[in-house]
């Protein structure tokens, strides 16, 4: 009756593996959900509580900021947020200095294999230690409570990630400049200085700035275990359920973090893109 269609459709790719994977993931989630000893009924109270406390926080923010005690809340929040940012910056500088040589030692095109493997594992190991653990195990016992402990913990803790990112950037370079430098008789150090660093520096500096943004948030966390910054202040405000103070401190964190992120982001894009790319972009805009 009907003529067989000459067009043969390709067979659909098998779905079995995909479905099996989905089922496995769902099963894991289901097991976790049932094993979780969470008080689910409290979830129903959450919106009401969030509304109540939210209005309390907003009320605190809207109070006359030039009258005590709110003036003090604002000033202290800004001061401690500044301390958190200082911690994050110093930590990032320490991490940048430590991770820069490690990045070259962990890249297979700039270091021999017997160095690359242990250095990579070292970086992985550092990445697996949460910053908080560094603070309570080493920094607070040796340096005492305060922002210095936090900055060092952020510094050591960021070495793993920064070193890994740097080594990946180094492994992704173009071989041309390296060969040219080597052909003109450069020693290995000179090859790295003139063949490798100019290629990777913009990317690595962008990683540093990105890590600085991450460390601002991490720095706020470390205050909870006594490492200075705004974290400890917020912790005390929560302990006394002082919602005016909490609201003000949260607003300061959100605004300052977003501001620093925006500046850092602009600098990062400028470093990565470079003046040439920006000129090209401008040309496209102008016509």
């Amino acid at each position: 009756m009907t003529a067989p269609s000459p067009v043969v459709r390709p067979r659909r790719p098998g779905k079995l593996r995909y479905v099996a994977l989905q089922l496995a993931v769902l099963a894991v989630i289901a097991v976790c959900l049932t094993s979780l000893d969470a008080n689910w009924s409290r979830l129903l109270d959450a919106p009401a509580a969030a509304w109540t406390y939210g209005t309390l926080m907003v009320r605190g923010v809207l109070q006359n900021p030039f009258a005590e005690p709110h003036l003090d809340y604002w000033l202290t929040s800004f001061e401690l947020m500044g301390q958190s940012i200082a911690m994050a910056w110093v930590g990032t500088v320490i991490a940048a200095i430590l991770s820069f040589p490690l990045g070259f030692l962990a890249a297979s095109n700039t270091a021999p294999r017997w160095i690359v493997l242990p250095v990579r594992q070292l970086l992985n190991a550092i990445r697996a230690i949460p910053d908080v653990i560094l603070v309570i195990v080493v920094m607070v016992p040796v340096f005492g409570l305060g922002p210095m402990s936090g900055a060092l913990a952020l510094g050591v803790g960021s070495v793993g990630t920064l070193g890994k990112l740097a080594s990946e950037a180094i492994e992704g370079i173009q071989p041309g400049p390296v060969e040219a430098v080597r052909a003109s008789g450069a020693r290995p150090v000179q090859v790295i200085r003139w063949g490798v660093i100019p290629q990777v520096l913009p990317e690595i500096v962008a990683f540093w700035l990105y890590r600085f943004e991450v460390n601002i948030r991490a720095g706020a966390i470390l205050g909870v275990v006594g490492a200075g910054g705004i974290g400890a202040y917020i912790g005390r405000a929560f302990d006394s359920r002082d919602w005016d103070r909490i609201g003000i401190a949260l607003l300061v964190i959100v605004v300052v973090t977003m501001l620093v992120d925006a500046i850092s982001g602009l600098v990062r894009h400028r470093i990565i893109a470079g003046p040439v790319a920006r000129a090209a972009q401008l040309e496209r805009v102008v016509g």
Partner: protein
Amino acid sequence: MTAPVAVRPPKPRPALGMWSLLAASVVITIVAGSAIDFDLLPLFSDTTRGWFIVSQFFAPDWSYLGRTVAPLLDTLAIAVVATAFGCVLALGAAMLASRITTRNGAIYRTSKAVLSVLRSLPDVVWGMLFVAFVGVGALAGMLALVAFNVGIIAKLTAETIDAVDPGPLEAADAAGANSVQRARVAVVPQILPNFASYSLYVFELNVRASVVLGFVGAGGIGTQIAVELARFNYDNLSAIIVVLFVVVFAIDQISGVLRRRLAS
């Protein structure tokens, strides 16, 4: 002597921007260093008490290991559930925060702003908020991680959506798809590998975050760490840290392998 004289190109002058950036970062470093009383002396001078405590961490009480299993499983369960809820919510949020899938400028800008507020608060602050909202326990930790995860996954996914191949989008439009259908058939298949990779990455973050969340009463292994620290039981604490390190390291490696496979 007729050979043309090779004219060397002039050496590019170091850009003014670079030098000012370098100077600015040196100044910022000095200001920041003095703001936190930067001082490395305790590393060498305070050899009596500080290093004694540190040395206690190198003598873990292995008999304590058994008691870390239950809270560790709790932590993993919290991390899994939070990642699951977080990535489902984040997929929707990412659709709203990309120009490709949301043509309405107001919705797009509002979603972006909400996401950057979500991201600007650290996980532990979310922990404190949810402990206040729903009380001490695993539920607060889970909700805190969900709020924290949505911000991260949605931002990364929205950027991936911005960069999708426009071909399938045009095909979906030409076939008369509405926004939801268009997102379902033209966007989701393109971003799924990246989205899965971000979810795994956030899962790694969540396992680490559970340590500090415990300090603010949000359940899991962190609570146990806070308790043992308050009692100065450094040998027990040390055992917990070793276990935690092994688990985090293993999860990072497995997740790293999976993410590399997703990327290729």
